[in-house]
């Protein structure tokens, strides 16, 4: 995916004039890019458009209008952009009360390393966090993840009749959900056939899992 740059950005005052229409467009576009993974996790699959929008909103919120601060923010967002053989996602941990926060943010420590895509019956692609977040004793409520597909997984992912599921296999949270057809079609059109070798991504994939290790469909432990 082409990197974001300053030339993609509108100055804040110009952005204000088009913001309502752009927001409405992106809100609509993001509807098919969301997946709920049980009662506490929500995933938004990112692409250049969704990240461009988020970047523009952040610059507006922070009141950044010029200077190296714009370049810093563009660089930060470009680390989230997926490469051709990758999928990018933002993982939200959803809590609504302080008591829930105290309980679940502690329970879900390390959740960002426990999210994976299951392709068919025997291929998993494990997500990795783009950066370390959270405190020593608890997780953050927002994580930025990438899924890196080696050839074997990418070929399987593009096969039309293969079931693709997202799952969480944390000790305190195990859920699995099938990727909706509309989302799957969009992601398939975006994740290319880049030929990264299996050796280069071996540490981010487990090619075989045992059936008893897979979280139960619709009956997560929470």
């Amino acid at each position: 995916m082409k990197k974001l740059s300053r030339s993609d950005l509108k100055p804040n005052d110009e952005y204000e004039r088009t913001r309502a229409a752009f927001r409405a467009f992106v809100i609509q576009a993001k509807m098919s890019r969301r997946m709920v993974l049980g009662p506490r996790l929500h995933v938004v699959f990112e692409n250049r458009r969704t990240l461009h929008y988020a970047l523009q909103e952040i610059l507006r919120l922070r009141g950044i209008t010029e200077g190296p601060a714009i370049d810093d923010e563009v660089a930060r967002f470009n680390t989230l952009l997926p490469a051709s053989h990758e999928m990018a996602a933002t993982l939200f941990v959803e809590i609504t009360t302080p008591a829930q926060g105290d309980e679940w943010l502690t329970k879900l420590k390390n959740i960002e390393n426990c999210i994976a895509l299951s392709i068919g019956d025997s291929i998993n692609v494990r997500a990795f966090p783009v950066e370390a977040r959270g405190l020593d004793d608890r997780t953050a409520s927002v994580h930025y993840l990438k899924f890196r597909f080696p050839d074997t997984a990418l070929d399987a992912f593009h096969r039309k009749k293969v079931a693709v599921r997202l799952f969480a296999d944390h000790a305190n949270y195990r859920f699995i959900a099938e990727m909706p057809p509309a989302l799957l079609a969009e992601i398939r059109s975006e994740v290319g056939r880049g030929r990264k070798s299996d050796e280069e991504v071996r540490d981010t994939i487990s090619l075989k899992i045992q059936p008893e290790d897979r979280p139960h469909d619709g009956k997560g432990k929470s």
Partner: protein
Amino acid sequence: MPRKLKRSTETWKNLIEALVIESLARTRLEYLAQKARLEGDVEPGRALAEAAGSHARGGLELLELLKDVGDPFVDTLLGSTKQTIDAAIRADTHRGVLRYPGFARMARDEGYDEVAEWFEVLARLERSRTSELKRMMEKLAGP
């Protein structure tokens, strides 16, 4: 000699509540001032902005009164610039801010997609803000 403020006294609780009231009033009046200016009402806009400013100064004085018992938001001491930046970073991992993704889910469930989107943007803002503050901390720490 003024009496030293103690936590968990009614006065400490009332100071925090007053801080919330003043902060809310300031934001509200700034919004109204902006609306007035957009409608071309210059004098009312100025008056509203001044009122917002008075609430801001009131809030700052409340924080000054609270500083010796610590930042009321994140329970850290406020003194040196390092301590204030640390407090600001911790504020972004405060229980309140961490609830924004959950607020987004509830808004979406109730059909308020625009509100949900705003909560998500606010939740994402923490990364940007914290990165900048951490950069400041590193600068203060020196080479």
